[in-house]
């Protein structure tokens, strides 16, 4: 994607000039704390498995990259741990960053009403056989979000109760949000071009 970014506004000079949009929101969960919670003794994963990803030069928001194999356990901790208490999964977004990548990202946007904080975790699945465990057992809302991710990216959620297309027609061919998706010429005799 690498045409170099040309910001239309001049670089901010000094702390006072930094626009408020760039600063991490006060309700974003500290990624270090989140990492410590997940990798604490008895926690679902090892500290080496977790990677903090500040994106962009100024880090609006960060992700934590988590191992896809343990996603269900991790989500359960995120829901139940008293420092996290993410009761709501706001949305689950599949992301295909570029045609050349051989991996898809699945990003979980979480909101805690009790602690009034947000967090985002990201798991990678191979594009050739995208599969990951469902988190439907943790949040019931994940049911439809996972169906949508399946619909658009073809990610198979293992253990999902009702994995079928949700927005596209049932007989739709292909997964439209993949970067190498080819538009169909026609659909049931209706020209699409």
């Amino acid at each position, binding site marked *: *994607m690498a045409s*170099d970014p040309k910001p239309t506004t001049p670089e901010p000079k000094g702390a006072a000039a930094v*626009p408020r949009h760039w600063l991490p*929101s006060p309700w974003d969960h500290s990624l270090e704390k989140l990492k410590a919670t997940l990798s604490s003794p008895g926690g679902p994963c090892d500290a080496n498995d977790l990677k903090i990803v500040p*994106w962009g030069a100024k880090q609006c928001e960060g992700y934590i990259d988590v191992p896809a194999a343990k996603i269900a356990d991790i989500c359960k901790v995120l829901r139940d741990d008293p420092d996290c208490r993410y009761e709501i999964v706001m949305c689950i977004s599949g992301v295909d960053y570029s045609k050349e990548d051989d991996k898809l990202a699945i990003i979980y946007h979480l909101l805690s*009403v009790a602690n009034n904080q947000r967090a985002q975790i990201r798991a990678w699945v191979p594009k050739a056989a995208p599969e990951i465990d469902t988190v439907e057992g943790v949040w019931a809302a994940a049911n439809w979000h996972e169906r949508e991710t399946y619909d658009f990216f073809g990610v198979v959620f293992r253990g999902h109760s009702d994995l079928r297309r949700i927005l596209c027609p049932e007989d739709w061919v292909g997964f439209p949000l993949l970067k190498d998706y080819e538009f169909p010429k026609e659909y049931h005799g209706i020209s699409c071009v």
Partner: protein
Amino acid sequence: MVPSSETPARGAAATLPVKPAGQGDYDEDFNLKPKFATPLARNEREMVMDVRTQDMEMNMGPQHPSTHGVLRLLLRVDGEIVTGAVPYIGYIHRCAEKIGESVEWIQYLPYTDRYDYLAAMNNNLGYSMAVEKLLGIEIPERAMYIRTICAELNRIGSHLIAFGTYGLDLGAFTPFFYSFREREWILSLFEKICGARLTYSYIRIGGVFNDSPPGWLEEVAAFCNDFEEKWKEYNDLLSENSIFVSRTANVGVISVEDALAFGLTGPCLRGSGIAYDLRKAQPYELYNKFEFDIPVGSGRKGTVGDCWDRYDVRMQEMRESVKIVRQCLAGIQEGPTLAKLSAALRVPAGHAYVGIENPRGELGHFVISGGDKKAIRLRVRGPSFCNLSILPKALPGTMLADAVAVIGSIDIVLGEVDR
């Protein structure tokens, strides 16, 4: 459901199933009416009634007037009692997210109007804020005031539709006309400021499209004064109407646990008793300057989290919006209304998730930019989509006629569900 092949033992005692408190679908505090809480199991029903009955599956929609658009519900009914519901959506799927990756940043704005077409100003605001967060630009203060005024007026307009159509769903025809009278005023205010009545594209990346015309703010003030009086009429007309109350109180109770698990936001979450409003909890733009309350479901007519509570939260919110608009009118100053941006906008590489409080709940925009003219990914989290997903949980156990009340109380807009 196919009738069970096992014939019940005829001599067995015919007792109603009584579940111990705290078990089953709802706990003690959030019980449905006991009569409808759990339909009898097949064998037990046959023992009690001494007849063989069969569940029926039927479609409600996609052209049913009470589904508020093209929603199809596959309902399984046992006589008058709903025992299962499966929503089918996607009839007006317009590939908003795919389009978002194919058009330039500014060109996408009109598509945001079209998810929740009853609250297009709020949709514009959510998308603009997400892109502005990536751009890192400051918005002129006057623009933020006008944005807030428009968003809150649109919230009133959207809740007026919810109020009017909810009455219509339940057999009260008159409130619909009254609510459209006030909404018409709001629409003509919008027409004066941006020229459109439904799909505004007025709130832009960097501010608002143009300044308010002369005399517009005074008209908004006049609307606020008038609306306070009208609101009281509406309340008398429907909220306390005993037929309406008996159709909505204790119906479709959504417990706090269910509301959170299914990701309900907005009036549906607040109707279940949680005072969580993004305008207060995670204030954006100017909302931390204003004083307003968060109405929550109180269970005044029945149980906390029933249809009446969700309806009442919307009614109360309209008054709070008027409060906010008044404070905006008091604080607004002269100044520029649009930050300077190049026409061929390149957004610095990065990603941003911005959730704002739409009339129906949290509208989230998750944008990923690779530093180019187009987005890598533009994810939209529509509140109606998530709120609708609770139907398979909320409908079983209600009467068939009450299913209409439950769907109406969730207040979905199918344009946003299908995107």
